[in-house]
């Protein structure tokens, strides 16, 4: 019993370690790719590591209160938890994580755990821009969740389950079994939602760095910031893994996972480089418009 538990915890830690490093490198390489797009050399791929170390190495920090402290903890726990509730690699005991805690719905809702905690922590900072950022973020979130939910429903209809492992299992057997092949419309909706979810351009008004200096984390610094940066890597990874599982046939091994998630993320960066930023009300209207229609179409296709 104890061994079983320890094994699982150990596996989870390993899995976590892998996704953290992968996530950091992914961010670094994407920054580099962006730089190439802009005709620059760009920062080193390992720059995210340096930034985190730098933040962690700050000699002092300030705190606005308990919730301010706990904000990054919530955020990181949210990211880590989200990841841990998703089976990262199909059929792998090592990367199975704690996916037996719940199905897709749990993952979808656990995403909010970190966001909520972070929003609260940022708010305690007392900075108006934090609150403005949160208000924008939440407002935008309600909108992009709609196409996402629709595509998830389409998936649920198609595979008659909400169990992620089962969804991945159903997609095994080649490209033509992937959701992206069987129901591309739903996947389009989900990918548009993903743009909003990762707050890249054109949906980056939440953290608009100059207008409301970086939004919610305005007051965060030192190790608190470091945790947020770490979370960004893990959380990104978790979301990518989720998308991969739902729409791109999952992964049977780590390299497959790396390739697939890299490509999914690449779409994201690609769009981000090509489009300017939208105002928050514009992006809400956008998500409730075409993407929602696409999502509904996806559901209908799944029903056919």
């Amino acid at each position, binding site marked *: 019993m104890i061994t079983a538990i320890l094994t699982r915890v150990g596996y989870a830690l390993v899995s976590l370690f892998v996704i953290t490093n992968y996530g950091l490198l992914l961010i670094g390489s994407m*920054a580099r790719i962006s*730089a190439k797009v*802009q*005709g*620059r*050399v*760009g*920062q*080193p791929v390992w*720059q995210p590591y*340096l*930034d985190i*170390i*730098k*933040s962690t*190495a*700050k*000699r*002092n*920090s*300030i705190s606005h209160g308990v919730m301010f402290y706990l904000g990054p903890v919530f955020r990181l726990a949210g990211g880590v938890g989200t990841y841990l509730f998703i089976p990262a690699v199909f059929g792998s005991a090592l990367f199975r994580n704690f996916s037996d805690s719940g199905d897709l719905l749990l993952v979808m809702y656990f995403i909010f755990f970190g966001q909520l905690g972070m929003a609260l922590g940022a708010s305690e900072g007392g900075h108006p821009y934090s609150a403005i950022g949160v208000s924008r973020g939440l407002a935008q979130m309600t909108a992009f969740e709609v196409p996402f939910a629709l595509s998830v429903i389409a998936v649920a209809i198609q595979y008659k389950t909400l169990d992620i492992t089962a969804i991945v299992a159903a997609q095994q057997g080649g490209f033509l079994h992937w959701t992206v092949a069987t129901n591309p419309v739903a996947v389009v909706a989900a990918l548009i939602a993903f743009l909003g979810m990762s707050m890249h351009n054109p949906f980056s008004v939440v953290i608009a*760095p*100059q207008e409301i*200096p*970086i939004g919610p*984390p*305005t*007051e*965060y*610094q*030192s190790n608190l*910031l470091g945790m947020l940066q770490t979370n960004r890597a893990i959380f990104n990874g978790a979301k990518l893994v989720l998308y991969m599982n739902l729409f791109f046939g999952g992964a049977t091994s780590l390299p497959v996972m790396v390739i697939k998630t890299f490509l999914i993320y690449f779409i994201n960066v690609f769009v981000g480089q090509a489009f300017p930023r939208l105002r928050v009300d514009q992006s809400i209207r956008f998500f409730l418009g075409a993407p929602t229609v696409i999502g509904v179409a996806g559901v209908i296709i799944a029903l056919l």
Partner: protein
Amino acid sequence: MSDKHSIPGPLANEGLPLAERGLFCDAPPRQYQRANKITEAFWNWARAQSLWILGFGTGCGAIELRPLMTSRFDMYRYGIQPRPTPRQSSVFVIGGYASVKTLKRIVRSYEQMMGPKFVVALGSCTINGGMYWDSYNTIKRIDQYIPVDVYIAGCMPRPEALLAGFQELKRIIRAGRGEGQNEYARKFEWYKANQKQVIKDWNMPDYNW
């Protein structure tokens, strides 16, 4: 307001109305211990590789910062990037002359940065007043008000000079000489006195956390 907050300290935010004093932290800045040598060296290396700029466009020099972000100069490749908030920045670039009005903001922003923090003084005006040396409204030497790590002379210095200055800063940091924060804490009374001498309408707290 509890008693704790109404006892005046040495400076005790006395420039503020009584009601507002409780709104600001009244702990003075202090000097921080360095970690053990190896750790500190590692950290300094990381700090040097990840310079986050608080670009403070106090004067004309700020315009020379912008080209650094462009593909021609691309400061990102040196691990340098702009950051919108002092809380997260480690390098304070003071661009050009500092009028009395902006000094107030410079001081506050500087004090709000987390240590270790470094200051790059950009342009002649920050060194000796430059062409504004006899102006009634600018200060002559910025280092009388906050500690400066690197001066980049010129009116205006070119982006290349800036890059050179940042390289110099990196060297200083790696060498463990970027101790402006502790310096400021050590000579806090002196800096504060200088600041107050210039800024007549002092409506700020004395400790800008």
